[in-house]
C-alpha cells in the first residue's frame, strides 16, 4: 500500500511538472546562428548573402499568417533564410478565405498575435482601410537606396497604397488569364477566343468533343466576386462610385456582366464549374480534363511539373491574355506582399528588414521560378512560360479592386448573391438582391455619402 501511495505521488509530481512545463509559454526558441559574411558596409554585420540585413542583437520572433501558392512558398523559404540574422519565423498558411478570416479576427482585437501578414493587395487594403496595418512610408524611404526599392514599378506601389500611404512591399504579380491545351484545340479545329462571346460560342464544339467547355473558377462566393468584377471591368464599369460608394452595378452593364457569367455556367460549365476549387481546376488542366479556361497566373508554373502533370499534357498547355467584353481585358491586377499589423509588439523596423531580406533581387530571382515577381528585369530560366500573357493581362486589364471603405461589404454581398446563379437564380434577380443587401449594410455602417 505504501508503495502504491508513493507511486501515485510520483506520478502526480511528474504529471504536474509536465503540465507546468508544457502549458507555460508558447515562445519559439530563438536560434542564434553564425553571423559570418562581412560585407563592405562598415560597422554593420549582415547576416548572409541570402538575407543581407543586419544581424539583430536581440532575438526576434515573428509569426506570419497568409495563404499559400507555389510562389508564396518560395518567398516563405526566403523569409526563413533570415533566421541567420537572429530571427525565428513561425509561418502559417490557411486557405485564402480562412486565412483572411483569421487575420481579421486577430487584428481587429487590437493586440495582434501576428507580426506579419501576407495577402493580396485587395485584402491588405481592406485591412488598411480599417486602420489595422502600419503605413511603411518612412521605412521605405530609409531603405529605398540600400535595397533598390525603386526597381519595383510605381504602379505596383500604388496598388498597395491608400491616400499616399504604402502598406506593403509588393512581391508577387498575379492575375487571371486564359490557359489552354493547344493539342486539344488544334484537334477540334478551334482557335483561342479573345472575347466572352467567342468563348461561349466554342463550348458546344468542346462538349461534343468530350471535353469540358470554357471553364472558370466559380465554386465559392469570393471567386464569383472576382470574375464578376473582371467581366464588369472589361465592359468599362466600376462596381461602386469611387467617391460616394453608391452602387453602379445594378445597371444594364451590371446585369449584362452577370448574364455573361450565367451563360458560361449554363452553356459551358457542366457539372464541375460550381464545385472545383482552384486546386481542382489546376489538376483538371494537368490531367487533360480541361481544355481551356481562366486560371490564376500563379498556377502556370505547375503546368510543367512532371510529378503532377500527365505525360500526354506535359508541354501542351499554352497561355493567352484574359477575355474581354469590350476593349479592356477582364483581368484583375493583384499583387501579393507582406504587411505589418498596427499595434504590434515587435519593433516594426526589424520586421520590415525581414521583409526586405525576402524581397531582394536574389529572393525574387528564386521566386521567379514560380510566377510573376514585382522587380523589373528579373528573369529565371526555369520560370513559367506565361510571362507575356501575364504582362498583357495586367497592363490592359481592369486593374485592382476598388478601395472605397464600403468595398469590402460590396465584395461580400455580390459574391453571396451571384453564387445563387449556380442553383438557378436569374442574373437580374441576383444583382438586385446584391444591391439591396449592400445598401442595407453599407448604410447601417455609415459608409455611403
Amino acid at each position, binding site marked *: 500500500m505504501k508503495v502504491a501511495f508513493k507511486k501515485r505521488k510520483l506520478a502526480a509530481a511528474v504529471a504536474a511538472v509536465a503540465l507546468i512545463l508544457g502549458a507555460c509559454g508558447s515562445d519559439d526558441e530563438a536560434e542564434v546562428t553564425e553571423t559570418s559574411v562581412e560585407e563592405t558596409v562598415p560597422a554593420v554585420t549582415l547576416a548572409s548573402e541570402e538575407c543581407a540585413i543586419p544581424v539583430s542583437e536581440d532575438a526576434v520572433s515573428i509569426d506570419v499568417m497568409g495563404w499559400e501558392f507555389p510562389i508564396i512558398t518560395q518567398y516563405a523559404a526566403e523569409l526563413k533564410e533570415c533566421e541567420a540574422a537572429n530571427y525565428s519565423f513561425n509561418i502559417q498558411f490557411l486557405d485564402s*478565405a480562412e486565412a*483572411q*478570416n483569421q*487575420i*481579421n*479576427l486577430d487584428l*481587429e*482585437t*487590437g493586440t495582434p498575435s501576428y507580426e506579419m501578414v501576407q495577402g493580396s493587395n485587395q485584402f491588405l487594403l481592406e485591412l488598411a482601410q*480599417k486602420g489595422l496595418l502600419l503605413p511603411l512610408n518612412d521605412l521605405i524611404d530609409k531603405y529605398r537606396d540600400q535595397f533598390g526599392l525603386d526597381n519595383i514599378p510605381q504602379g505596383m506601389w500604388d496598388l498597395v497604397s491608400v491616400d499616399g500611404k504604402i502598406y506593403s512591399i509588393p512581391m508577387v504579380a498575379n492575375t487571371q488569364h486564359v490557359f489552354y491545351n493547344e493539342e486539344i484545340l488544334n484537334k477540334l479545329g478551334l482557335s483561342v477566343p479573345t472575347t466572352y462571346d467567342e468563348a461561349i460560342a466554342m463550348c458546344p464544339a468542346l462538349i461534343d468533343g468530350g471535353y469540358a467547355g470554357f471553364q472558370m473558377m466559380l*465554386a*465559392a*462566393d*469570393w471567386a464569383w466576386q472576382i470574375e464578376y468584377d473582371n467581366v464588369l471591368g472589361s465592359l468599362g464599369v466600376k462596381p461602386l462610385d469611387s467617391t460616394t460608394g453608391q452602387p453602379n452595378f445594378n445597371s444594364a452593364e451590371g446585369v449584362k456582366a452577370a448574364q455573361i457569367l450565367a451563360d458560361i455556367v449554363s452553356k459551358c460549365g*457542366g*457539372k*464541375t464549374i*460550381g*464545385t*472545383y476549387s482552384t486546386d*481542382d481546376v489546376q*489538376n*483538371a488542366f494537368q490531367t487533360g480534363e480541361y481544355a481551356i479556361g481562366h486560371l490564376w497566373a500563379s498556377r502556370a508554373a505547375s503546368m510543367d511539373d512532371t510529378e503532377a502533370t500527365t505525360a500526354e499534357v506535359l508541354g501542351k498547355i499554352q497561355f493567352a491574355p484574359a477575355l474581354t467584353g469590350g476593349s479592356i481585358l477582364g483581368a484583375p491586377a493583384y499583387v501579393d506582399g507582406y504587411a505589418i499589423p498596427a499595434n504590434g509588439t515587435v519593433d516594426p523596423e526589424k520586421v520590415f528588414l525581414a521583409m526586405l531580406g525576402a524581397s531582394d533581387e536574389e529572393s525574387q530571382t528564386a521566386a521567379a521560378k514560380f510566377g510573376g515577381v514585382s522587380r523589373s528585369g528579373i528573369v529565371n530560366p526555369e520560370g513559367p512560360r506565361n510571362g507575356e500573357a501575364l504582362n498583357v493581362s495586367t497592363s490592359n486589364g481592369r486593374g485592382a479592386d476598388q478601395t472605397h471603405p464600403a468595398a*469590402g*461589404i460590396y*465584395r*461580400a454581398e455580390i459574391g453571396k448573391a451571384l*453564387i445563387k446563379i*449556380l*442553383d438557378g437564380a436569374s442574373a437580374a434577380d441576383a444583382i438586385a438582391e446584391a444591391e439591396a443587401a449592400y445598401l442595407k449594410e453599407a448604410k447601417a455602417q455609415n459608409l455611403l455619402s
Partner: protein
Amino acid sequence: MNRKSFVSFVLPSVSVMTFLMVIPLATTIWLSLTDLILRDIDSAPFIGLQNYREVLSDPAFWSAARFTVLFVGITVPIQMLLGLAIALLLDRVHRFRSLYLAAILLPFIVTPVVGTLLFRNLFSRGGLLSWLIELFTGSAFVVDASNVRFLIILHAIWHVTPFAFVAIFAGLQTLPQERLEAAAMDGARTLRSFMHVTLPHLKSVLFFVAIVSIMDSYRVFDSVFVFAGNRFDNSHSLSVYNNVVALDAKIGRLGKGHAIAILTIIGIFVALTPFLIRSYKEQIAERT
C-alpha cells in the same frame, strides 16, 4: 459520506465547471442582448432582444435549424439500429473478435475533421466512390447542393455508429447467460428471446446512447464545416451558421452570434428535458 467531505471532494470539479462553463454561459446570455461586433470588442451597447428578432427572421437561421433537426432525426436512429445490429453480430463470434473490434472502432477514433477529409476524398475528383457512381449512372459525379447533405449524413453515420456499437456491445457482455438459456429451454425462439430478454437488458444502454447521440449530433460542427464551409449554405448546421455570423470577418456580429447560441441551446433542451427529468428521477430513486 457526510456533507462536509462531499463538499471538499467535489469542490475542484464544481469550481472548474462553474467558472469555466456557468459563468461563460451567463456572459453569453448577457452579450446576446448587446450589439457586440468583432471589430470593436470593447463596447457592447445594450439593445435588448433585437438580435433575437433579427435571427428569428433570418431565413438562413431556419434553414440551419431545419438541417440540424433533419440531421439528428436521421443519424441517431440509423446509428442506433446499425450499432445494435453490429453488436449482435460481433457477439456471436469469438475468433478474431478483437481484430474486428479494432477495425469497427476506427471511424470513431479518427479526428472528425480528418475523417471528413478522408470521406470527401472518396467522393471528390478522382475518388474511388465518385468513379463507381459514375460507372453506374453514366454521368460524372460531382458534389453539389443536392447531394452534399446526403454525404454529410453518410459521413456522420460512418463516424458515430461505432460509439453506439461499442456501448451496446459492452452491454451485451453483461447479459447473464443463464437467462438466455432459460428462455431457450422455455421454447422461446431467437426473435422472442431477443425481444423479451436481450432488449430489456439493454434498455439503459440504449437510453444512454440515445441521449448522448442526440446531444452530439445536434452540436455537429467539424464535419459540416469542412464539407460545406463557405459554399452550400443550405447544408449548414446551427453551429456552422453560428460560426459564419459571429466569426466570419466580413460579418462579425458577435452579439447576434451569441443570440444564435442561446436559441440553439433552447432548441436542444426542448428535446432533452424529458430525458434529463427521467435521469434525475432515476438518480433520486437510487438514493432512497
